[in-house]
């Protein structure tokens, strides 16, 4: 009972909850009203409340939640990504589709789950927060389904997600069995005291990695359910690939640092092999795709692989590099998906060849898509380059130079593959006549903000680097 006094530290989460409740009440009594602005106000209030907690370390409910620099950095990224997703979501309804008024409420609850998850310092709270995020994503896939296969895609996602949650829970159970602790730092101390090699602990690492693989984007859902990209609207895929992935990787980072990083099992070698496989397979699959959305999903495998590279140097620079990489990853995914959503208002096609002459009809979107693709590949001078550079640097420092070589080769491979897209967008003659289209203010703002963010982080990495080192030192001590 001694730490009940600082429940006010939950104020950002409480604002999100309040926003969600207002949205649900409005959806019940005023189904015609637009609820997205309300949700955005909730996000802004949550951010302001979070801003009052910068540079503090607060322990809530006897260690169930640790609001340290790491958590606050990840929460800022999550809030920003959620705000951009909500801004873009209004433009993503086909003619004839009536928007569901309650939908922004589920986005807010999912964001709430992500915020709680990145600050959770204990197994029960961590699992509950991750499930809050996941359950709302399942509801969103069901709400925004398209066509006859939509509900099947949503249900396939749910079954896969539930199975991966159970595997994750089993991994946590093995750690609990070995350490007798549910608080992550205490469990880490107990694991560090274990003598000799512990096959059971290695099993726990593998179970956790498998449990997080779907959430991190390592295993694309479409291998399970055909038509996942077409059955679920892109705004939900965008949210899952930005907010969901950032939260999952950050949580896995915290579990790794707090529990098994201090033990004697060769966890880094296991993760390095998975990372090398994910980077190479993801890029090879991505550059052979003919559909833009599928390309982005497969590229997500490669990005998750790069994020795992940072785990080879957890004790030193890895966490800082991971935080910076997650920021650039969220911005890049949002920029790519927002341009796809915006361009879909002019051309109802998902094929890469139908992007031809995009630079003539919608030059702004073409530039934004170009920036996103360059950043996804990891070429200078945009944000994605520095994210990947720092991660590969961490691999070298951690003694995994071969992994850094694999990563660098993958940047070259991705660059060669993505040049095709740039050529189609900027050089190729148009396939058909594209009528000029007027885009709404919110989707234009999303594209402009995320593209500006990619360029800005490429030019001025300094402030982000300082914040990330602060987050790293907070979690290591």
């Amino acid at each position, binding site marked *: 009972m001694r730490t009940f006094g600082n429940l006010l530290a939950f104020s950002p989460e409480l604002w999100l909850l309040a926003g969600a409740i207002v949205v649900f009440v409005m959806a019940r009594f005023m189904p015609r009203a637009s609820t997205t602005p309300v949700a955005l106000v909730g996000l802004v209030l949550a951010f302001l409340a979070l801003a009052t907690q910068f540079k503090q370390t607060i322990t809530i409910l006897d260690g169930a939640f640790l609001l340290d620099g790491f958590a606050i950095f990840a929460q800022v990224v999550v809030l920003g990504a959620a705000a951009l997703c909500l801004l873009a979501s209004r433009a993503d309804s086909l003619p004839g589709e009536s928007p569901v008024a309650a939908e922004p409420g589920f986005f807010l609850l999912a964001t709430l789950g992500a915020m709680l998850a990145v600050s959770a310092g204990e*197994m*029960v709270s961590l*699992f*509950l927060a991750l*499930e809050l995020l*996941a*359950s709302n994503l*399942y*509801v969103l896939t*069901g709400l925004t389904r398209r066509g*006859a*296969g939509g*509900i*099947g*895609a*949503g*249900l*396939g996602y*749910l*079954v896969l*997600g*539930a*199975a991966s*949650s*159970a*595997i994750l*829970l*089993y991994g*946590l*159970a*093995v750690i*609990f*069995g*070995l*350490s*007798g*602790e*549910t608080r992550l730092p205490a469990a880490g101390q*107990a694991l560090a005291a274990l003598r000799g090699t512990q096959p059971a602990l290695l099993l726990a690492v593998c179970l956790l990695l498998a449990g997080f693989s779907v959430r991190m984007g390592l295993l694309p859902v*479409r*291998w*399970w*359910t*055909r*038509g996942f990209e077409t*059955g679920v609207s892109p705004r939900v895929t965008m949210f899952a690939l930005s907010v969901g992935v950032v939260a999952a990787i950050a949580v896995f980072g915290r579990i790794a640092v707090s529990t098994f990083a201090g033990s004697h099992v060769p966890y880094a070698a296991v993760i390095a092999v998975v990372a090398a496989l994910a980077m190479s397979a993801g890029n090879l699959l991505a550059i052979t795709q003919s559909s833009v959305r599928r390309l982005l999903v497969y590229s997500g495998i490669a990005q998750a692989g790069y994020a795992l590279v940072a785990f080879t140097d957890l004790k030193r620079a890895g966490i800082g590099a991971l935080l910076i990489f997650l920021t650039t990853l969220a911005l890049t995914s949002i920029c790519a998906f927002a341009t796809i959503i915006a361009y879909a208002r002019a051309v109802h096609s998902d094929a890469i060849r139908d992007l031809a002459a995009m630079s003539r009809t919608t030059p702004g979107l073409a530039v934004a898509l170009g920036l996103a693709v360059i950043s996804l590949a990891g070429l200078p001078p945009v944000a994605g380059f520095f994210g990947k550079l720092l991660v590969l640097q961490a691999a070298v420092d951690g003694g995994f130079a071969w992994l850094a070589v694999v990563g660098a080769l993958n940047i070259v491979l991705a660059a060669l593959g993505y040049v095709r897209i740039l050529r189609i967008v900027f050089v190729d003659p148009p396939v058909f006549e594209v009528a000029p289209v007027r885009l709404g203010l919110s989707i234009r703002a999303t594209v402009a903000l995320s593209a500006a963010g990619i360029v800005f982080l490429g030019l001025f990495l300094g402030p982000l680097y300082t914040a990330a080192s602060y987050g790293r030192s907070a979690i290591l001590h």
Partner: protein
Amino acid sequence: MSAGLNLLLVASAALFAVGILGVVTRRSAVVMLLGTQFMFIAAALVFVAVARFGLGAERATAGASMALFAGAVAAAELAVGLAMSALIYREHRSFALDADRG
């Protein structure tokens, strides 16, 4: 390591295997959901067993509460999943996820 703990861990592993088998091999959405419930229960069983017989005895309430919350979470996911299964049944007159599986 007591005999009770070993017995419970073996039982839990068996439950987990049955659950994975159900999810991977069956096509019916309801049976797949049932498989995920088996997996959740198997993991919860490890928490309870460790809290009762193993190292977790000092924090037995933590293990028990984890099992409780895991059950609640599993039920919440089942609720969403069954609602979606009902929608699928209305569209296709069958619970099979077959048509959407690649």
